[in-house]
């Protein structure tokens, strides 16, 4: 008696956006390869460099995605990087601690930030922005307390980690005709492993789905019998841990600790996440999106570097024009999708 409408949809709106994002990324990268073919943009190493430079960003972006999916935010990550790098450098260079212990310290610092911020946010119900803003101040200030000077990490073992190359079976020929095999650093392997782990967790674990539920409607999640506070707390703890781990990767890339390190990094991480389709209001977002968000940001700056004739201010403007173009395009696609839908 009743007319039934079967919904036949292979993917929903958010998956659609993700596909658009990936498509735009590919389009941009390929355009770069065509325009700058003479400047080595097409080399496989150029792409791998994108991963190498952004290993830390990918890991930290994953952490941010987790908290952003719950409707929160974490703007302390830049400071956590500075603090972790500084502490690691200080431990290894001034205190003679082994790199293993230093890595442990890095993870513990991240975890500590996660625990404290998570507690304030989920159990005391203080706004995440403010808590992590305080965390940002705190981390940066504490870095200066540890040391005001730059510390260069010269520890042999640590440097060997940083310089250990993993060669790929492919590569490219230089202008002089020499073959250079492409390579990555261990940081990339770690970052990709974390990425896959978090993707699986977000999609296939109870905890992961609860994060989405809370972000979608916290009140409902509570009424549906989820332990909202604990889940949120754990989200921040995990985010803190990933921030610690990401800082370690960052440190392997930069091999130094100093007060001004990674200033503004939180904005990079947040925008990577958002370009990848995460909503700041919560409930929507995937680590895979964040991964592509990071690659997109990397590609944009890579394009500008390769271009190489802009003056400082034009670099900033060009960066944001590309960013703007990208964001607007995304929103136009989203709007089209919405329109078609309703």
């Amino acid at each position: 008696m009743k007319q039934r409408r079967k919904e036949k949809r292979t993917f929903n709106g958010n998956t659609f956006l993700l596909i658009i994002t990936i498509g735009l990324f590919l389009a941009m990268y390929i355009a770069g390869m065509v325009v700058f073919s003479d400047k080595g943009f097409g080399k496989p190493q150029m792409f791998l460099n994108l991963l190498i430079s952004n290993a830390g960003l990918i890991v930290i972006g994953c952490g941010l995605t987790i908290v952003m999916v719950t409707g929160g935010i974490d703007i302390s990550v830049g400071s956590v990087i500075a603090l972790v790098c500084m502490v690691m450098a200080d431990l290894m260079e001034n205190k003679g601690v082994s790199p293993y212990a230093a890595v442990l310290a890095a993870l513990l610092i991240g975890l500590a930030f996660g625990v404290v911020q998570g507690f304030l946010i989920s159990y005391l119900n203080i706004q995440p922005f403010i808590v992590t803003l305080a965390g940002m101040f705190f981390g940066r200030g504490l870095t200066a307390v540890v040391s005001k000077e730059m510390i260069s990490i010269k520890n042999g073992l640590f440097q060997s980690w940083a310089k250990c190359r993993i060669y790929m079976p492919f590569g490219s020929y230089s202008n002089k005709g020499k073959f250079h095999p492409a390579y990555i650093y261990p940081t990339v392997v770690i970052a990709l492993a974390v990425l896959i782990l978090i993707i699986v967790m977000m999609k296939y674990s109870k905890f992961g789905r609860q994060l989405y539920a809370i972000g979608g409607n916290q009140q409902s999640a509570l009424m549906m019998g989820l332990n909202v506070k604990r889940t949120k707390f754990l989200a921040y703890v995990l985010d803190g841990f990933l921030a610690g781990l990401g800082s370690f990767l960052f440190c392997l890339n930069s091999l130094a600790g100093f007060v001004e390190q990674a200033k503004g990094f939180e904005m990079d991480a947040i925008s990577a996440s958002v370009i990848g389709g995460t909503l700041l209001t919560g409930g929507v977002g995937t680590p895979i999106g964040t991964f592509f968000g990071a690659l997109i940001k990397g590609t944009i700056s890579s394009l500008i570097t390769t271009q190489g004739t802009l003056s400082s201010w034009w670099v900033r403007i060009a960066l944001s024009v590309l960013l703007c173009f990208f964001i607007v395009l995304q929103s136009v696609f989203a709007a089209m999708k919405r329109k078609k839908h309703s």
Partner: protein
Amino acid sequence: NGGTSAGSKSPAAVSAGGESQTGSAEKKSGGTVTVGFSQVGAESDWRTANSESMKGTFTDANGFKLIFDDAQQKQENQITAIRNFIQQEVDYIVLAPVTETGWDTVLQEAKDADIPVIIVDRMVNVKDDSLYTAWVGSNFRAEGDKAVAWMEDFFKSKGRDKDTINIVDIQGTIGASAQIGRTEALEAGVKKNSNWKLVAQQTGEFTQAKGQEVMESVLKQHSNIDVVYCENDNEAFGAIDAIKAAGKKVGTDKGEIMVLSFDSTKAGLNKVLSGEIALDTECNPLHGPRVQNIIEKLKKNGNVDKKAYVDEKMFAADDTVKSVSAGTGKFDVTVVTQDVIKGRAY
């Protein structure tokens, strides 16, 4: 903006890289040389002058192709840029590092790709010295030492070398090489002269606004300040305003507050001329011709000095102290006149 783009032709520049003009003619026949330059950013006038100097030197007309990258004060951006330069297979990499530390990995990559790296401005602190070919830049510690030596001589000649001298240090951005060198020099000076007292030390982040804010606060706590040691010109401007607003006088006499500064920008020298800044120690940004000089030498497989300090002058309001000896050498003190200011490029 005429002042800056003419940078490469300023007197200071010529003194360092005299043969640059002739060298370029010959370069054209040998094909263009690609230079990748990773600059810190455009955070100050000094930096802008530095960039302009590079751009003015490595022009197509001179036989160069410059790939300029602005890192927006982020080390990680510079590391990425250098990797990019390597993939572009530039002939030379010029690096003005944001920080001294953390260059081991990426410079190793450059070395593996057989690209010589020339460091400008700040030094890099790497385990293996062979990772870079040459360095050109300022010695911030020496700058500080010169200012301190001048101060010692000045007070001696005024007969105040036994009086207590209360000094305020308005530091630069914490962790910047310039801040570290200049602060160290002052602290060493305070240690050496038992009558000097460092009554306050606070960062003004190299900006006028912060310099002013910090000085305002310091003035409310201490009534008998003799010297304000500002680690760049902008901070000095702010400090001077704060001092005046508090109803005190800037100057070198007893009871007045003496302002020392660094950089010697045009604006700074104007303040020296008017007597508000007692001593302004130069920090020269015109590195373009010097780097070109090194590249020319490298092209001819010639030897280059691993480290080349830029000689920097001192500008004072009066000639109480004619020259100072600090560290390794003796340095003349220039008394600022209108002509001196006219001759400045930045």
